[in-house]
């Protein structure tokens, strides 16, 4: 049935798109793309689930197949216009991740998390940078660089390629209803590693720019970085306080209010050079650790997040240009392997140092493999920061993200199942999610209770 629906949708889309009138503007194309992608990705997710694969891989795969790279049902402007969902999704995901990070329960894991961040994440940056440096013969855009410049660019690329994905980790945790030290440790690591990656990118890219002769104002860079990090956290904390206050005092319409805040955070925050991910994360952490509203907010997000998440991953897929793999396929595969080895064995070493439980030692490394939003953003930022390297460099990093985006969720899902944490979500929370039809809907105001 689901396969049939996907084909019928594709047939309809093809028929409708054959009417190519010149007055079809962005809005109409966007509405059509929105509806089509939401439905197709949803059904692709159910098909993947039936094949014991992660739903979100299905969403991404649907985006790739119907996007400009393969079937072209969605053209480039349609995909670009759908990106408006990304900011909201990232803010909501980060806020949810923040509300998961309770200091009290995380404290025993902190030692492990910090060791993994230092050894696995930072170590893999070094490993990737070394790999890029030695493989520079395969990378035409590095042909004219001297050793020192090559080393710095390799370092920047290492940072870009190591980025993890809290979005995928959260989505898989929800999907498999996993609960336990592995999923908690992974969530903690990807959140902290994201902070570290943002920081490292700012530092390494400024250094590389200076050495490439473009000049970089150190004080300006430091100020911008400080604003992005501390400003985001400050704004996030403020928003968290407001949200907690609203949820506990006003209550009515909390779901929509939350959605509104996510939207503002994503769009206005970005324009103010704040990092929406950091701000939302800080908001979520404050809500969890300094208020009693965490469960309610978590519940509210869960209620309306599904369409946003489906669209977010599908748009991420539609944005992937699979064709770039043809030109950078070999080095991309090589770096994916190096990254995987670095993160997995780095985590094993780190967890052994930290004396983490056996399951964490065996499986946590797999949770660091997925990539999505941040990696894509850094990849684009790299292209923007170093335009002299042209599209090739962007293609390489995008190629790495594409491969990880498709393969890594499958591996992490397998790890969650093997670790025995899948399906262990607390019974009350599980009931909330399963019975989403009663509880899991947006509170629209007093009339709707």
């Amino acid at each position: 049935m689901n396969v049939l629906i996907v084909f019928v949708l594709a047939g309809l889309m093809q028929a409708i798109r054959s009417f190519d009138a010149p007055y079809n503007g962005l809005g109409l194309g966007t509405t059509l793309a929105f509806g089509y992608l939401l439905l197709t990705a949803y059904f692709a997710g159910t098909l993947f689930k039936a094949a014991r694969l992660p739903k979100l891989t299905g969403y991404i795969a649907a985006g790739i197949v119907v996007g400009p790279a393969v079937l072209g049902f969605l053209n480039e402007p349609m995909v670009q216009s759908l990106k408006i969902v990304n900011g909201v999704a990232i803010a909501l995901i980060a806020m949810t991740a923040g509300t998961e990070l309770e200091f009290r329960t995380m404290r025993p894991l902190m030692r492990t998390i910090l060791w993994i961040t230092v050894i696995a994440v930072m170590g893999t940056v070094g490993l990737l940078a070394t790999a890029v440096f030695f493989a520079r013969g395969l990378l035409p855009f590095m042909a004219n660089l001297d050793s020192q410049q090559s080393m710095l660019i390799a370092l920047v690329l290492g940072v870009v390629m190591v980025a993890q994905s809290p979005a995928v980790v959260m989505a898989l945790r929800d999907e498999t209803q996993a609960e336990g030290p592995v999923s908690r440790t992974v969530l903690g690591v990807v959140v902290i590693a994201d902070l570290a990656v943002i920081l490292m990118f700012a530092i390494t890219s400024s250094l590389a720019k200076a050495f490439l002769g473009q000049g970089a104002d150190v004080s300006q860079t430091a100020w911008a970085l400080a604003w992005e990090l501390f400003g985001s956290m400050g704004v996030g904390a403020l928003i968290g306080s407001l949200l907690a206050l609203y949820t506990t005092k006003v209550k009515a319409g909390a779901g929509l209010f939350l959605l509104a805040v996510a939207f503002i955070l994503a769009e206005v925050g970005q324009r103010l050079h704040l990092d929406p991910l950091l701000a939302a994360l800080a908001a979520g952490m404050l809500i969890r650790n300094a208020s009693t509203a965490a469960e309610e907010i978590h519940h509210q997000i869960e209620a309306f997040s599904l369409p946003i998440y489906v669209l977010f991953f599908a748009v991420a897929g539609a944005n992937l240009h699979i064709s770039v793999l043809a030109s950078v396929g070999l080095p991309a595969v090589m770096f994916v392997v190096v990254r995987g080895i670095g993160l997995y064995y780095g985590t094993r070493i780190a967890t052994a140092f930290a004396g983490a439980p056996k399951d964490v030692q065996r499986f946590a490394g797999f949770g660091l493999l997925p990539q999505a939003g941040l990696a894509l953003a850094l990849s684009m930022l790299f292209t923007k920061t170093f335009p002299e390297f042209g599209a090739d460099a962007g293609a390489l990093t995008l190629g790495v993200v594409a491969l990880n985006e498709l393969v890594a969720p499958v591996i992490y899902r397998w790890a969650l199942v093997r670790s025995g944490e899948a399906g262990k979500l607390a019974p009350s929370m599980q009931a909330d999610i399963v019975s989403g039809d009663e509880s899991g809907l947006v509170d629209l105001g007093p009339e709707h209770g």
Partner: protein
Amino acid sequence: MLSFVVALSSVVFAPVAIAQTYDAFDAGSDTVEAAPSTAALSPSTNQPPVVEPSPAPPTQHGGVIKTILGILALLTLAYLGGHAKVRAWEERLGISQMMAAGFPFVVLGMVAHLPAVGILTDDVLLELDPLLHVGLGCVGFVFGFRFDLRTLRQFPVGSERLVFFSTFFPFVLALGLSAFVLSLVSPQQDMFVFSGPLFLRDALILGTAAAMSAPTARRWYRLGKSTRLSLLVVRVEELLGIAGLALVAAYFRPQNADASWHLPGTAWLLLSVGLGATIAALTFAILQTATRGPEFLVLSLGAIAFAAGAAGYLHLSSVVVTFIAGALLNNFPGEYHMRLRDTLRRLERPILLLSLVIIGALWQLSDWRGWLLMPVFVCARLAGKWWATHPVLLADEQSRLTQEERYALGLSPMGTLAIAIVINAKVLYPGASISLIVSAVLGGGLLTEIFVQRVHRKHAAKTRVIRNTPPPSVTLGGMP
């Protein structure tokens, strides 16, 4: 309500920041890409679609500050709009009914569109264009899903005449009088001749909008058995409204040589019906697969957006196509009705309110011709409705109405569908004359509501009829 208004206005004006601070590259590329759509939304554009000059983009920092101040100002306005005292004042004025209860949101849109405020600029409206299409689709779907074929089979004896007159009279009067005034003041004088397609199209839109009513009479009167009659009249009017819009969308299409499909009007009409039926069948199949509430939300939203997007892409009416899909789904057998109704009930409110803000921004306040057309439209409509219930016309035993029934049926405010019809017409034909119609119908809706509620209040007090139902919330009107 208060919190909801605040929350909602935050949602609405967040995208402001996007357009306010877009750098020249982004804004430029988007504008070029979407030029026709901008024209569709712009309140002051003429056919063929031409991009309206937007206010100059503010500088990065200026834009951000202006945006934040704008959001704060609008949040305050939203807060005031939802405040208990303001609502009490609305109640005293008699503008607390469905259409007018959403009026603060229309005002938000109007204020935000003012050049001095410059928040909902044409560029931002372009960003919100998909939202308007989804909103129109949702309106059509919700109204369609309320349409039960069994209702038509249960026509009370003798009510056919009433239904005919109450639809026909306001239609003809508004069509005649308003279109006449429009022909005098239309900015497209050279093309606007009697019996010309532009005149016929605009007259049809005005007449169709005038025929729509809101089923709010039960708030004032104990109608007893006639409550069903008043609802029936409203349902038939809605059906005719949809038919009128379908005709407008099918037979007055721009003949574009570059379009891939060249079909006669009747073929487009049949295509609208076919598309609606196809979407209904597809949605029926889709809904069978959903097991959880969030899945229902994804599938319902996806189906509505797909239907609205498909209709819009084919330059058909989103409202018509989704109405047909909704009506068929309501009349198909199955287990999904309750859950779909529940999902729609949750979707309709935020989408309607968001749409009202956009509609407010589209309202061309500065054009005096819209203000001139407004009272003519209101008078023609009210006169038509009132005469339709005249005892002379309904003289036989079975059709006769009591005084209360006559007040309830003859003095009814305008329905939400009327607004959706004219906005959809504007999206389809972004001509200047349709902007005037939008002004007339939006303002006329409010004016009618104030007038009829004052009359009802007086009459109810005089005849000691007690109000027996609470005022409705801001929804599309009484989803059962």
